[in-house]
């Protein structure tokens, strides 16, 4: 069936296993393939408050969905639902929920689970939200927006604009080649090999650790946690690494002139800027490399109540 600007459900529903008892109850698995109609699949939206979501990009055009439902008994299993809504604009939505029904016995949320493993076209943008489950995205090229409440977020090998938010789930982003914006309230953010134009990460109560970061605009902020960063300073780049109460530890690999401004309760600027002294406004400023300073990267480090360490890796 060819559809103008719409998606077609491929008629491939493969049984992989029937319901089988396990220690945790019943497990039910299913697989479905959704092929594009007249228009390629450009956006995948997933909302799964009941378990984990793993999204993996590949070079095909279809979306392949594997669902695993876990429940204590048959009645509970019957109440778990996965809905698939393909839209004519090239968006596919996958939603999970639990049915109410008229004469249901009370079912505890912790007793059931729906896990989704989705293989999607690499160039589809991802918009995914989970609650306490793990949200994992790998090998995607069009970025996305990822939300969790307490579940961890893990992203690897991604291009395009990426935005992640979590209340208390650890966020791990590795091999990101587009702009990254990560925000958590009470959990850590770990960054490894970030190469986009812009990197923004903010945490209220948690740490930020970044290594192999090379972005023109870097802004890392914590209220209470420590910030550790090993980064390259590109020409005319700008870095603001700031914490209210946490320590700041930055190791910089530079390729040109760098202007460093530091303001902290205590500081250690190493041998390269050790001679710099605070000005009347409390800022310590030093310059690395030869002029022209117009091309200098600007690095601003601050911790109102913490300790700032800075070193240059030549």
């Amino acid at each position: 069936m060819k559809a103008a600007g719409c998606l077609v459900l491929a008629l491939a529903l493969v049984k992989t296993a029937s319901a089988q008892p396990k220690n945790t109850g019943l497990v039910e698995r299913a697989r479905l393939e959704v092929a594009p109609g007249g228009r390629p699949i450009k956006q995948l939206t997933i909302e799964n408050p009941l378990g984990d979501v793993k999204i993996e990009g590949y070079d095909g055009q279809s979306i392949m969905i594997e669902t695993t439902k876990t429940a204590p008994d048959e009645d509970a299993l019957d109440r778990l639902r996965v809905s698939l809504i393909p839209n004519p604009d090239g968006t596919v939505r996958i939603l999970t929920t639990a049915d109410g029904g008229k004469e249901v016995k009370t079912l505890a949320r912790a007793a059931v689970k729906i896990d989704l493993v989705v293989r999607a076209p690499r160039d589809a943008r991802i918009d995914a939200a989970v609650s306490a489950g793990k949200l994992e995205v790998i090998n995607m090229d069009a970025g996305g927006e990822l939300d969790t409440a307490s579940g961890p977020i893990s992203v690897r090998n991604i291009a395009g604009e990426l935005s992640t938010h979590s209340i208390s789930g650890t966020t791990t982003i590795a091999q990101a080649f587009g702009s990254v914006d990560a925000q958590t309230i009470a959990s850590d953010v770990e960054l490894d090999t970030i190469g986009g134009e812009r990197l923004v990460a903010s945490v209220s109560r948690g740490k930020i650790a970044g290594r192999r970061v090379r972005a023109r605009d870097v802004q890392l902020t914590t209220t209470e946690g420590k910030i550790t960063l090993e980064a390259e300073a590109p020409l005319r780049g700008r870095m603001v690494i700031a914490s209210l109460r946490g320590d700041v530890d930055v190791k910089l690999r530079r390729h040109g002139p760098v202007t460093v401004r530091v303001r902290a309760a205590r500081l250690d600027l190493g041998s390269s800027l050790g001679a710099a002294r605070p000005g009347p406004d409390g800022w310590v400023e030093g310059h690395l490399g030869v002029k022209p300073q117009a091309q200098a990267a600007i690095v601003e480090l601050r911790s109102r109540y913490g300790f700032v360490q800075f070193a240059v890796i030549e």
Partner: protein
Amino acid sequence: MSCERIQEKLTAYLDGELAGQDGSVVRGHLRECATCRQAASDEAALRDGLRSLPPVDPPPSLWAGVQAQLAAAEVADAKRPAWRRALARWAPSAPRFAAGALVAAAAIAVLWWRTQRAPDDAPGPDRAIATPAPAPAPAPVPEPGPPPPRGDITAELAAEPARQTEAYGDAAEELLALATEVRGTWAAEQQTAFDARLSELRGQIDRAPEGRPRQKAWRELIRYLQGAIVRDEIALAGGVP
């Protein structure tokens, strides 16, 4: 006329299809028989209810798909030799039949998915994908049912967006308390700018619908407060570190 015969004619009567004496007989019976009057009233109420349901249109893609397949079949038909076209008058065209069968199969599959909770459905993986639809679904008709039992998963899921929003709100309030402390050190115009922006962001939160949009609005406020407190963006904006 017996009640049974009258009730058989009720549908036609309500449709206005009974003219003359037939209509008069039914009307006269309904004046006297409370049971049949109730049956007529129930059916009229049911019709009103059905009329109030939102229309369910077939997805545009269905007709587009049928047209495309028919067009392809016609093109193929035109290219066939005359003897095969003559034969086709007597035998169903295979490609056309196949196109129709494909459309029908897709429609059946969708219907089957939508109604897959058959009583004899053995526990199996098929039920995992519950309600695929080939086009934007019409507005769902809420099913009146009893409220979910306390502690039930449905109640917990319904309460979750508000719970998450509350967590963001708590984090913002903590930062706001810190901001209030440092606000006193800013110049008057900086305080005014801060208050105005704060009011604007709070307005955005109030206007945002519950769920992810409101959480997003809270996150924006949190970012703004962090910028103000941790990075002294407001203080530095006026050149006062």
